[in-house]
């Protein structure tokens, strides 16, 4: 019997992981660790190897090289132990649409062996958390896309996993529903001791993670906090409109030592920390300011800097890769 690993151990530990499908190297040697309690994101276009990696970590696919441990257990040799300690939310729905929400959860509780006396309480708790308690006796085929996804998240949490895997948790949902899913995920972090591992190809969603790994063509290109990644790319862009632009530009040069230029009819400067700079600007510029805007570098800029492509371009060629490889395409469809 495997001893329960210490809780301070990393939630996910990956060493030189490889996965090869024929001639295609879907995962080409990656290393990383995810700390307990962290929200960790895999960002990258379709076909970058995110889903393959998550499938290996969930014990659904065997790696062709390297090793991975989840919740302290080896994903190849201690499959059952891994499975007991993870919750899964896949890209495609895996609910039984003809059962009610509660029936789907009960099925899961039985299959995972949740102790009988705890099922009712836990079921209430997770359905309450995702706002579906009132709909517990409705059949899932009456649910909207967002409700189904929330129900899947509730089900993934039912057995108190140490790590929750969310593979593209908001794909195919409208922006409003996407942001509501995120507020549930934030709430979840407040209520449970859980590590969240997610993949996404939405740049704005990656901002919700504590750390992000950007994946491209089976490799991790860079791994850091969203803030650090953006800082590594460049400075914030501050644009102001004033009563007297030439005077403002002179003042910027003399008092702040920054060079300004006029773009889009506004005085534009680049500074390391735009938000902290703005209050000083108001206090010390000496020219009345009419409007101000601060634009941060986006993760799109980060992706472009590190991979040389925009994520949209990468997405397009990623799909070509899929199409040219029938086996991967079949997997992607499934």
């Amino acid at each position, binding site marked *: 019997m495997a001893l329960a690993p210490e809780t301070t151990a990393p939630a996910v530990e990956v060493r030189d992981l490889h996965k090869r499908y024929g001639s295609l190297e879907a995962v080409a040697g990656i290393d990383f660790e995810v700390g307990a309690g962290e929200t960790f994101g895999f960002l990258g276009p379709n076909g970058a190897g995110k889903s393959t990696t998550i499938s290996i970590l969930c014990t659904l696919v065997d790696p062709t090289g390297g090793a991975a441990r989840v919740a302290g257990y080896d994903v190849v040799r201690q499959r059952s132990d891994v499975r007991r300690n993870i919750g899964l939310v896949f890209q495609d729905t895996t609910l039984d649409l*003809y059962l009610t929400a509660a029936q789907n959860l009960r*099925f899961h509780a039985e299959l995972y062996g949740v102790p009988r006396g705890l099922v009712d309480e836990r079921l209430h708790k997770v359905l309450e958390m995702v706002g579906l308690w009132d709909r517990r006796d409705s059949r899932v085929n009456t649910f909207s896309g967002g409700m189904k996804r929330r129900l899947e998240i509730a089900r993934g949490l039912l057995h108190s996993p140490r790590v929750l895997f969310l593979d593209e948790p908001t794909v195919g949902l409208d922006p409003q529903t996407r942001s509501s899913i995120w507020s549930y995920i934030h709430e979840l972090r407040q209520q449970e001791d859980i590590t969240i591992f997610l993949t996404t190809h939405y740049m704005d969603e990656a901002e919700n993670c504590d750390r992000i790994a950007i994946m491209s063509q089976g490799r991790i290109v860079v791994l850091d906090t969203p803030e650090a990644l953006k800082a590594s790319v460049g400075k914030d862009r501050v644009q102001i409109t004033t009563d007297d632009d030439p005077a403002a530009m002179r003042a910027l040069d003399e008092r702040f030592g920054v060079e300004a230029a006029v773009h889009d009819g506004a005085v534009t400067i680049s500074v390391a920390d735009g938000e902290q700079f703005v209050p000083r600007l108001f206090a010390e510029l000496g020219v009345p300011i009419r409007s101000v805007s601060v634009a941060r570098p986006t993760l799109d800029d980060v992706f472009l800097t590190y991979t040389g492509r925009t994520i949209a371009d990468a997405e397009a060629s990623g799909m070509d890769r899929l199409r040219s490889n029938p086996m991967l395409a079949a997997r992607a469809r499934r």
Partner: protein
Amino acid sequence: MTTVSEPGAAAGAPAPARATPIHLPEQSLRHDVRAVKVVWQREMIRFSQDKVRILTSLLQPLLYMFVLGTGLSSLTRGATGDVNLRTFMFPGVLAVSVLFTAMFSAVSIVWDREFGFLREMLVAPVRRGSILVGKAIGGATVATIQGAFVLALAPLVGVPYAPVMVLVLLVEMLVLGFSVTAFGLVLAARVKQIQSMMGLMQMVLLPLMFLSGALYPLANLPAWLNVAVHVNPITYAVHPLRDAVFVHIDASSQAVAALNPPLTWWGWVVPAVVQVGVVVAAGLAFLAIAIWEFNRAD
């Protein structure tokens, strides 16, 4: 334009009490039994929801008994003696009904794959065998319930409601249903697309039915057909069903000899228990193959 939301934006609010984590037990027989039971329960829920399926599955046996049976009886009146052809066909129709219903139950696993639910089952920390055992028992139960509806029509074809006979027929249908579902699961492990599965089923079901003696007696068959019938496991389910029915109807010994001759292996009369044993053994073998196949697949 700084709309970056901080992770844990709600941190200002007092943190709600942390949930007490659940500790899942290690894998055990008890856990496997729970899994078998819940998979079975799901089959029952799905079956009870599908009233249309229950009705349409009743249509086929009705056609066999009352349309084909009536139509052909003018041809066969001389041959069946004092036994109506519909009466003769009754046990065979029970078997056919179970055969089709059980096979359709096995197909549900291909639907589950198509709609993703199979994944939910396969990633669970439970032996895959218990999921398949649940499916097979579920298919057997559903097929037996369907068979019971047909059995309820017994008096219409001159078969009485004898309690012992009803009980024996139900048990035999359960056994047949289990084995056919297990066989269907073997096919479903390989065939990933629902269209191909439907085609394959048609290809498999009709020969199984026609070569089982469900629709004709095992007397005076040409040698090739006689061999084919004796190789088909379904034959060993049809024959005990017919034995059970024939005990409870009034038939001359001539008619019994013509319509329900004993099943023999090289002249040895195979006892009913051995016949049922053949069906059980075939079912367990198919189930083992299905489990092996699902364990191999990811």
